[in-house]
């Protein structure tokens, strides 16, 4: 502890170099906190606790369709309060760069299922009653300068219509959302019109949503639903919305592997950078270290001082990085659905701190050993 001032002073020796090193470590651990949390969230099992909405998806691939009448069978299960469904429309609005999710849904059950989409009664009624009706989030309407009554033309790239023409939907509602975690950049289309007018796959849906009476029964009902269709040609995989969103994101690739790859590259670079900086810093201080040994600091003391300097630099950079990651994840989990429930757990913080110690050891040990083995006479002789 009495060496703390001596160790701390190393940070002030070259302020710009220290700042850049700390900044790079800060960014590395910020990325670690974010990516590792996402990776863990994506690899952990489905947690049904407290969940009152279940997503019933095709068992083998989310691009497989499910029969719409599965919804009827699910609705008959005891404990299921309400059933709705949604399908992926895809499509092109104006050009391929103008992307936002578009979902054909049955308006009545959808609005009952998702009260977090806020519409006026008139807009709700219009959505239910208008076969070509569509609703969009307010930010989306503002982005494209759309207002009620406008036509929204969409090219059906996945689902061409029977006339092979552009789909046209009437904007009948512009929704707000009840909380930040609900996405506002989506468009919902009347399923009935979509289903009748598409060229094929009538009577099928993308996935089914079931609202259950008692969240405590969610795991059991999920199992029952999957059991119900276990021997059918359209088996299901019932999961939570959070797990489904993550499953959706996983279509991009193996999220865990991607995160690990990115983190490995980041840490390898930081190790080289910090290691080089530490080695250079110690090289420049050979005479000072020789003086410490001259006045009686033992080899072990000098070794520990250099190692502690490395640890100090890594901790001063990494801990704020982890703290910011925790803050950002809290923010993201409230505002981005795919991050819903993703958090910087105590385990990941412990992993981060462990990684910081390991990093300090790797970058600090070679210069520390050099400092320990320093021959006073040679070091002072070179300097004198």
């Amino acid at each position, binding site marked *: 502890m*009495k*060496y703390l*001032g*001596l160790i701390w*002073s*190393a940070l*002030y*020796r070259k302020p710009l170099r220290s700042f850049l090193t700390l900044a790079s470590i800060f960014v590395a651990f910020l990325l670690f906190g974010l990516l590792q949390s996402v990776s863990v969230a994506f690899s952990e099992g489905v947690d049904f606790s407290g969940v009152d909405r279940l997503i019933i998806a095709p068992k083998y691939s989310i691009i497989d369709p499910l029969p719409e009448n599965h919804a009827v069978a699910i609705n008959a299960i005891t404990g299921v309060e309400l059933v709705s469904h949604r399908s992926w429309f895809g499509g092109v609005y104006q050009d391929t760069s103008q992307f936002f999710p578009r979902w054909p849904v049955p308006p009545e059950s959808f609005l009952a299922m998702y009260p977090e989409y806020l519409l006026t009664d008139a807009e709700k009624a219009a959505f239910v009653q208008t076969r070509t009706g569509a609703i969009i989030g307010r930010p989306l309407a503002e982005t494209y300068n759309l207002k009620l009554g406008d036509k929204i033309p969409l090219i059906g790239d996945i689902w061409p219509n029977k006339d092979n023409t552009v789909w046209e939907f009437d904007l009948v509602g512009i929704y707000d959302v009840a909380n930040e975690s609900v996405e506002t950049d989506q468009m919902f289309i009347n399923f009935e019109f979509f289903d009748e007018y598409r060229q094929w796959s009538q009577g099928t849906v993308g996935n089914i949503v079931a609202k259950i009476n008692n969240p405590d029964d969610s795991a059991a009902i999920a199992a029952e639903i999957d059991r119900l269709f276990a021997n059918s040609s359209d088996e299901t995989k019932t999961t939570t919305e959070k797990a489904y969103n993550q499953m959706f994101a996983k279509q991009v690739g193996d999220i865990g592997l991607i995160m690990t790859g990115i983190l490995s590259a980041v840490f390898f670079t930081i190790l080289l950078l910090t290691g080089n900086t530490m080695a250079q810093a110690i090289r420049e201080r050979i*005479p*000072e270290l*020789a*003086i*410490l*040994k*001259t*006045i*009686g*600091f*033992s*080899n*072990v003391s000098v070794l520990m001082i250099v190692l502690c300097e490395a640890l100090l630099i890594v901790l001063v950079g990494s801990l704020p990085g982890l703290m910011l990651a925790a803050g950002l994840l809290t923010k993201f989990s409230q505002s981005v659905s795919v991050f819903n429930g993703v958090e910087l757990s105590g385990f990941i913080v412990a992993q981060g701190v462990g990684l910081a110690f390991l990093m300090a050891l790797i970058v600090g040990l070679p210069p520390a050993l050099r400092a320990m083995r320093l021959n*006073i*006479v040679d070091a*002072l*002789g070179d*300097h*004198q």
Partner: protein
Amino acid sequence: MAETLIEIADIAKDYHRGKVAIPVLSEISLQIEKGDFLALMGPSGSGKTTLLNLIGGLDTPTSGSISIDGERIDKLTQGKLAAWRSRHVGFVFQFYNLLPVLTAEKNVELPLLLTNLNRKERKKRALAALAVVGLQDRASHRPTELSGGQEQRVAIARAIVSDPGLLVCDEPTGDLDRATADEILELLQLLNREYGKTIVMVTHDPKAADHANHCLYLDKGSLSGSQTA
């Protein structure tokens, strides 16, 4: 009769360049009394600094023995030698060798970090040492904010802060102008006379050597003469 502090008996020191041994000192025997102020002079490469390093416990002889205050330092392990230096020797170098990121007070305090003194006591002693060298008002200054003479005074304060009996000084005025050099030498004389420090000083400068009580001359690794003030 004065008590002997340093007793050097027939020491030799070789350095090795590859497999070739290069003798630097040979057959050196001498005694230095407690409270003496000795100057070591000689041409470059004569072995002055090597002998000083052996006396200060920074290096060990190839053969022969060195006893300081009755302790055979040539027999000590590296760890024990480091601990011995911290208790018994203060070092002053030509280029001061202060840590640039530390204030004068913190530089002086460095040797006290190796003691069991608490923070308050360390500070008190560091300030007292700075007062001895006349720099109590520069305690919070960093080396870059001090003149060369002031830096050397801080280095001397660091050398005496743990109250060692022996000061070894390697060209302590080599980087200073004449007037400042004289001030430093007078300070060393003060430490010798008033505080009883035994001082061994390497110098090229005959005027610096004039401040010492004795002067020993080395040439080609051997003692070649002596002079008493």
